[in-house]
């Protein structure tokens, strides 16, 4: 347990929080990298996924993208991008983060739209709703839990990849860990790992709350039976899982 205690001691030492390579700076870098990449990825993947789901076409594309995303190591993409002319630029990291955020968002958006109760869609059509009305009034509200599940999964993925960016000298909290390894400072390695882990858990918790808060049907889904408890969880295990 000594290693963990040393790590905590390192974290609670105020001297490690300030400065250009301190925890504070790295934390801010990490958060804005994650936020910006998620915004870009959502802007790209949500419209495509929702639209394909609405049309009911391109299913194989949506599923295959997530399969490919899972098989390609994030570290390999980071290393390859680093060796392009982009090099040390911050865009190397952002492009890698966006690339790995797209598959879960796209696939979950697609699956979310496809899983909408066909009876509800048929009833809406019968009432004379147009394609656009159907999309906005029926399909989107019903698809929100799964769509948000994808965004939540992507956030976890992006946070993890942002940590890994440190290996190619990118910004973010991972730098604390890698420079700890470089200086053979065990307390710093563990301290950095603790703060990255805590940040990931906090963000995941916040995303879960957000997912629940934006579900327009949450009151209708009162007292879910046990089997239904996982509804709204990211599509697992055979659809979307990736890690970094």
């Amino acid at each position, binding site marked *: 347990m*000594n*290693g*963990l205690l*040393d*790590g905590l001691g390192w974290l609670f030492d105020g001297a490690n929080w300030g400065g250009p390579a301190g925890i504070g700076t790295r934390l801010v870098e990490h958060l804005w990298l994650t936020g910006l990449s998620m915004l870009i990825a959502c802007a790209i993947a949500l419209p495509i996924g929702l639209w394909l789901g609405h049309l009911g076409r391109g299913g194989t594309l949506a599923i295959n993208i997530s*399969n490919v995303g*899972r*098989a*390609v*190591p*994030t*570290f*390999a*993409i980071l*290393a*390859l991008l*680093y*060796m392009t002319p982009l090099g040390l630029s911050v865009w190397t990291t952002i492009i890698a983060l966006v690339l790995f955020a797209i598959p879960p968002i796209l696939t979950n958006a697609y699956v979310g739209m496809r899983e909408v109760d066909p009876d509800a869609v048929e009833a809406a059509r019968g009432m004379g709703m147009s394609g656009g009305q159907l999309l906005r009034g029926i399909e989107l509200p019903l698809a929100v839990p799964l769509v948000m599940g994808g965004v939540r999964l992507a956030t*976890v993925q992006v*946070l*993890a*990849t942002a*940590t*890994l960016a*440190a*290996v*190619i000298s990118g910004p973010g909290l*991972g730098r604390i*860990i*890698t420079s*700890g*390894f470089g200086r053979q400072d*065990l307390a710093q*390695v*563990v301290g*950095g*790992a*603790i703060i*990255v*882990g805590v940040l*990931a*858990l906090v963000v*995941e918790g916040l995303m879960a709350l957000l997912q629940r808060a934006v579900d327009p049907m949450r009151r209708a889904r009162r007292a879910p039976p*046990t*089997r239904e408890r*996982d509804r709204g969880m990211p599509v*697992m*295990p*055979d659809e979307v*899982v*990736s*890690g*970094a």
Partner: protein
Amino acid sequence: MALSGPVHTATLTDNCLVRNDWVCGEYIRTRQDEIVEALIQHVTITAISVVIGFAVALVLAVAARRWGWLRGTILGTSTALYTIPSLALFSLLFPFTGISATTVIIGLVLYSLTILVRGILTGLDAVPADVRESAVGMGYDGFRLLRNVELPLAMPAIFASLRVATVSTIALTTVGMIVNHGGLGNLINRGQSSNFHAEVLTASVLCVVLALIADALLLGLQRWLTPWRRAVSS
């Protein structure tokens, strides 16, 4: 020797290694041994992790079904573990297991649990109640019921999760390079820091190929283990 240029260029070795090409046959020829070594390490770490992960997940899934209150705890804990970035998880294990394959394997086992426990539970939950009841009526109980009736019927869901777990474990093994046991990840890391294009690209491509081969092998194994489904699908 037919010379097309000045003589001194012919004395300089000019090959794809010197030009630092992305695709380089010379690299594969000259570094064959270390590529094979990295490949073996990669496959070994992945295989051990998935096998241990599957065994643990099976026990956890059966326990979760036996005692309902455990279900939420097991699923919640494994999901939380999955959230922790791999670089941080390996670093957290580092003080205990040091620079060793054990550090990487423990981390990978923990990650695979999220996928495998869910998959096995999904499969077992989907066994129709009347099938289970008939089996119990025929005298199956406990372990025999699980082995002869429930597990075979849960096979498709279990294999689906096993394939996902294996493919993502192969990708994640690369991060093990932080403790020098990342298989092909070691090559990527070294190639990246010395700006060696062919080394990084070759190792990356091999990772993906490895994942595709493993996925195909598991699919084949599934077909072989569930011969009754072949009749259904064809």
